[in-house]
């Protein structure tokens, strides 16, 4: 970082783009893109910055300490609503979230009155919970919703402090792998092509450094395509970024898709409506204001 000044005489040094992430399966395309960047990109160097929690990542993104991130889209929308110039340029993945419950729970109605964990109010996981309860004919208030840091969820489930949770991977797979939880539902059963994580960039980058932004998205899509193979090669790259067992990784990869990363209007609008319906946000940013598909469309053409 900051290698722009006093560089070698071969010409001007390349700009370093910093992207933030949390070590979850959902950010896999970023991992592969960084790996690819080691071969050299034309217009920029890529540096991934790992964070310990979503709020920490959002602090850095909002203040411009990173140029973009793979982040829960609801958080980015929230920041946009608060006046931060952010745009979603691609999805992180499709599907890939599971509702994990205690082995004794067999249907959503068994969760009635029990504690159930989500990572965050502003998350697709909260919406998934809402949908699940709604489909089962229950009210959101019928379960005791608890916001809990994801790493704590498998332990809380194992000790039966909670009856279930829905969260990003690999935390769901973890409980399944150690035999303390089972999959009640997969996200596509509740909400096909659900929108979860997105690649979000700061407005300055998109508007001011178009060329870089374009190459970033081009390479991102290529990386997504490679991730979708779920080959041994891409798994070994993933394991450099998130230190998990093969079993857990394999399990969580089964549930997720990394192709077709364009954020479509219908999916986004559905998300918006849920946010409004659930009372999480009175006026989430519109598709036009928040989603910039021009880069991804350009890439598809190119």
């Amino acid at each position: 970082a900051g290698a722009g000044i006093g560089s070698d005489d071969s010409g001007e040094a390349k700009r370093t783009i910093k992207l933030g992430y949390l070590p979850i399966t959902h950010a896999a395309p970023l991992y592969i893109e960084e790996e690819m960047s080691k071969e050299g990109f034309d217009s920029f160097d890529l540096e991934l910055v790992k964070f310990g929690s979503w709020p920490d990542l959002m602090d850095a993104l909002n203040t411009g300490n990173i140029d973009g991130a793979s982040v829960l889209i609801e958080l980015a929308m929230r920041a946009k609503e608060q006046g931060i110039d952010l745009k979603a340029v691609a999805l992180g993945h499709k599907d890939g979230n599971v509702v994990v419950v205690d082995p004794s729970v067999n249907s959503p109605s068994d969760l009635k009155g029990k504690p159930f964990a989500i990572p965050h109010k502003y998350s697709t996981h909260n919406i998934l919970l809402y949908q699940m309860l709604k489909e089962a004919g229950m009210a959101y208030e019928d379960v005791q919703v608890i916001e809990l840091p994801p790493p704590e969820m498998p332990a809380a489930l194992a000790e039966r402090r909670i009856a279930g949770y829905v969260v990003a991977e690999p935390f769901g797979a973890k409980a399944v792998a150690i035999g303390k939880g089972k999959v009640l539902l997969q996200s596509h059963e509740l909400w096909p092509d659900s929108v979860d994580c997105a690649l979000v960039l700061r407005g300055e980058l998109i508007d001011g450094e178009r060329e870089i932004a374009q190459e970033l998205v081009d390479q991102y899509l290529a990386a997504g395509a490679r991730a979708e193979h779920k080959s041994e090669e891409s798994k070994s790259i993933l394991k450099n970024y998130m230190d998990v067992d093969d079993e857990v990784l394999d399990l969580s990869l089964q549930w997720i898709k990394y192709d077709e990363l364009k954020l479509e209007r219908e999916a986004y609008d559905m998300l918006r409506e849920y946010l409004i319906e659930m009372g999480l946000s009175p006026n989430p940013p519109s598709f036009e204001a928040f989603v910039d598909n021009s880069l991804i469309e350009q890439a598809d053409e190119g």
Partner: protein
Amino acid sequence: MRILDKFGFAAIAVFLLLAVWQLAVLVGDYEASLLPAPADVGGAIAELLQSGALWTHLRVSLLRFAAGYVAAALAGVGLGLLFSRVPWLWRIADPLVQVIRPVSPIAWSPFIVLWFGIGNAPAIVIIFLAGFFPVLLSTVAGVRGVDPIYLKVAGNFGIAGHALLTRIILPAAFPSITAGMRIAIGTAWIFLVSGEMVGSQSGLGYLIVDSRNTIRLDLVMAGIVFIGLCGLALDRAVLLFERRVRRRWGASG
């Protein structure tokens, strides 16, 4: 007159703080949602007060704090007295204390969840851990710092055991113990936020974490203001307690 005097200085302090803050907002020219101005935070505070949310959070936090802190103070003073009277025990405990003390509650939290679950218990345990060590260490230091002549006098008059503890050692070590208790107040409050991150759905710490999650930094700042004010109030309460005990000792006899 003296009260006015006191609050006069506090008023200057508050004014200075607000002025610096407002200046930072003006000079820094930050996005308003990233550094809310005093007026915005005032609005947020009013909102919290009106909706009654503040009182709920405050009550829950104070209860958790009281449970964790009182337990920490009792355990810290009790074990501190024990350790400082039984040297070999302290020689075993001391390295343990020094190894366990610097470990952050954040690091412990996976294990705290495992043992204490979520909700009230982990918050109380974390506040306990934060408060326990300062009280323990300052009690041990206080007892060891008791002027030997008091112990000589006590030994001479056959004051031993329980009476030695309550009549000589405790009063002599009292300033050091209360200093530790004041430090512990601050430290324990600090960890309220960590403690209320582990599955709590209420409390000032939750308010801050939740507001941070929803990028409502004006509410974060409002939470900070309340935590700060409560910390100040609790600190002054311990100070008052200390003065009262001292005065009682002075006057009784």
